[in-house]
């Protein structure tokens, strides 16, 4: 039994990766998302786009996981770009003030364009 979440992690080359999430992100599955992201980072990804367009629920454990990834990417001068957060998820960033440290993009295309793709 676990919280339903599909994780699609892709290395696009040139140090850019995308993680598409679909479902709910909570304390039960943040370790899997973190592992998928760390595999990309270990493989050379420096700029990571997290596509949240199909995330119906996220809580502070998801936010904490993203902050951890941001720190990890910053160690190698990389970036974490959060794309397409739905209104309820976006509100979570606003409540916690994390929208100031984690840039939010309207969609994955805009985030990818920001890192030259």
């Amino acid at each position, binding site marked *: 039994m676990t919280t339903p979440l599909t994780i699609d992690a892709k290395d696009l080359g040139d140090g850019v990766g995308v993680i598409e999430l679909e479902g709910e992100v909570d304390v*039960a599955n943040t370790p899997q998302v973190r592992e998928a992201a760390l595999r990309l980072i270990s493989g050379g990804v420096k700029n990571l786009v997290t596509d949240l367009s199909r995330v119906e629920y996220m*809580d502070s454990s998801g936010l*904490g996981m993203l902050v951890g990834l941001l720190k990890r990417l910053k160690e190698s001068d990389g970036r974490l770009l959060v794309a397409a957060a739905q209104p309820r998820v976006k509100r979570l960033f606003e409540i916690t003030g994390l929208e100031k440290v984690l840039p939010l993009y309207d969609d994955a295309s805009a985030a990818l364009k920001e890192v030259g793709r």
Partner: protein
Amino acid sequence: MTTAAPANVELRIPRRPEYVRVARMAACALAAQLDFTFDLVKDIELAVGEACTNAVEHVAKEACSEVLLRFSVLEDRLTIEVIDHGQGFDAQRVLNGDAEEGEGGLGLQVIRAVMDELDVQCGQGVGTCVRMVKYRARS
């Protein structure tokens, strides 16, 4: 005018991450039953998820094995208590925003934003009770 006695619903979940969703679903079902709007139902779900996550993540594994959720339905409000019997923590420090990373500060910040009232009672060795209130629309 008579005041109806509160209707109480209790749920015990194993103190494990995969059961936090069960608590969230129960909170959703109850809140929807009480005619909260969809947005308020989702706020209540989020608050319950955060409180349970705190109990699951920030309590030593050997300290307790269950989390108790106690829902009290009153005419004008829904009160939810999330209780664990872990080692407790310095709630005031967390609520003041002085928590260390990973101490659950974000979760309480979220609960405070989406619920109408939040109170955290805890003490060394006696555990933690996160008490949250959402007022029902007055007709």
